């Protein structure tokens, strides 16, 4: 395993992070460092707790042990107003889109701008149109979320996440449900936004080939633990069976495709 250079300034640190839903342990002591100004990707099988990690970073969930530090502050220890002050600097693209169903596409993207700035209407309009143009949906600005396809809704969510040019953006599976052309555009968009605005990006994705191209660092999670981390090249050459299984999409290996269960034959015979 290669360490992420310790000289790097870190925006987010997770140390010994544990989280359970009831009796089910989801995260079992993970350490993840997110360096400033870079694109860091968290990969892992479905249901390992990647979205949960993002929820812990934004303070929607509280860890049962360990801590999440953002800009040197422990998220779980913040009161509501401090937490909201921190969240103003974060943008998040939800896996489900989470668009406001009573607002048009335009108003969805304008929402954070209206809430947190006093910009004149003409400027809000320009800002929103620029963001919508970047995701290719300027023409869809007056549609309601119910009139969008899943992929379109996610692109609007992406535009909304970056509407205020936050210090840090989290993308929860931005490529899912997009056609190859859009995937290419979104990849470029994430990288360009990151570099030109000096953001820090956290990406959650399964798309190995895509994220290898645009990420600076990768973390592979499995079974509630981080099983490998490093730059894309390091991971490609890793001899860890976890990583090879995941990168090459093999059904058998240390990571399990199945949700924990008893043997299929046993279950069928037990009837």
């Amino acid at each position, binding site marked *: 395993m290669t360490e992420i250079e310790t000289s790097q300034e870190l925006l987010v640190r997770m140390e010994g992070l544990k989280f359970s839903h009831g009796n089910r342990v989801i995260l079992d002591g993970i350490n993840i460092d997110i360096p400033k100004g870079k694109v860091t990707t968290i990969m892992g099988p479905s249901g390992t707790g990647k979205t949960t990690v993002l929820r812990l970073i*934004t303070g*929607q969930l509280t860890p049962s042990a360990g801590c999440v530090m953002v800009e040197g502050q422990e998220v779980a220890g913040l009161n509501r107003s401090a937490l*909201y*002050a921190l*969240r*103003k600097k*974060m943008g*998040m693209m*939800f896996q*489900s889109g*989470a*668009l*406001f*169903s009573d607002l048009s596409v335009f108003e969805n993207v304008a*929402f*954070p701008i209206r*809430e*947190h700035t006093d910009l004149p209407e003409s400027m809000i309009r320009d800002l929103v149109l620029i963001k919508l143009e970047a995701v290719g949906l300027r023409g869809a600005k007056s549609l309601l979320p119910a009139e969008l396809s899943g992929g379109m809704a996610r692109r609007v969510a992406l535009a909304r996440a970056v509407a205020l040019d936050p210090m840090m953006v989290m993308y929860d599976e931005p490529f899912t449900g997009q056609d190859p052309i859009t995937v290419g555009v979104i990849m470029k968009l994430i990288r360009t936004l990151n570099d030109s605005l000096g953001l820090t990006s956290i990406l959650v994705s399964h798309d190995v080939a895509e994220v290898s191209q645009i990420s600076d660092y990768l973390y592979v999670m499995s079974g509630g633990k981080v099983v490998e981390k490093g730059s894309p090249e390091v991971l490609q050459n890793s001899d860890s069976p976890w990583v090879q299984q995941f990168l090459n999409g093999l059904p058998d290996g240390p990571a399990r495709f199945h949700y924990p269960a008893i043997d299929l034959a046993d279950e069928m015979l037990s009837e």
Partner: protein
Amino acid sequence: MAAMLSFFQQIGSKAFLSLARLGRAHIFLLRTFGALPSLWGEFRLVIAQLFSVGVATVQIIAISGLTVGMVLGLQGYTTLVDFGAEDSLGQMVALSLLRELGPVLTAILFAGRAGSALTAEIGLMKVTEQLPAMEIMAVDPFKRVIAPRFIAGFISMPLLAAMFSALGIIGGYIVGVGLVGVDDGAFWSQMQAKVDFYDDIMNGVIKSVVFGVVATWIAVYEGYEATPTTEGVAKATTRTVVHTAFAVLGLDFILTALMFGGL
């Protein structure tokens, strides 16, 4: 013995959970009150909700008020005429509506029409992660979502109850004077003479204000606390209607006892 113990255990745990729920509902109400000042200058939000909460309920309230008043007119007449007191029909219709039926039926109809819609709307915002998304954007859902709806319900209820009573009186008039032949002048003059502004009208208004707070509180709370699944929202919607009906009927008894004496 063991079965009995577990029976009591179950009662205990049910009671404990209900108590915890009641506690959360009160914390919720305090947070809603805390968010109210932020609505100053955001009248747009309140007006939008007044429209969907209040105006949408007008139709059902108008129809119900009119029909209830017509039934009151007919039933009242058949009883009063035996005593030769059919001239008091106006008084009887007005008092029943202003003191009891207006506020109570309006609140229960409100729960079925607007309260259930509020719960479902807020619950679905939770299911589709709109509320978490709002929180991540550092926007307090209590300010954006809960408080405007709460105020809209609070303002709408007394107005709807007044409308219910007014239309009910018209319904009673149509049947009493138009159909069964009570004297026109007597109908109104008896009503004017016997209905007291403070004792009858104001007490009715106080009731509908109390019911407005309770009905809207239950509706927005159930939506906010709903389990974020389709089934959870469906259950929460049902709870809104049932709990509001019980709360309104129970409170009505207490308020009536306090206002009109007897206890």
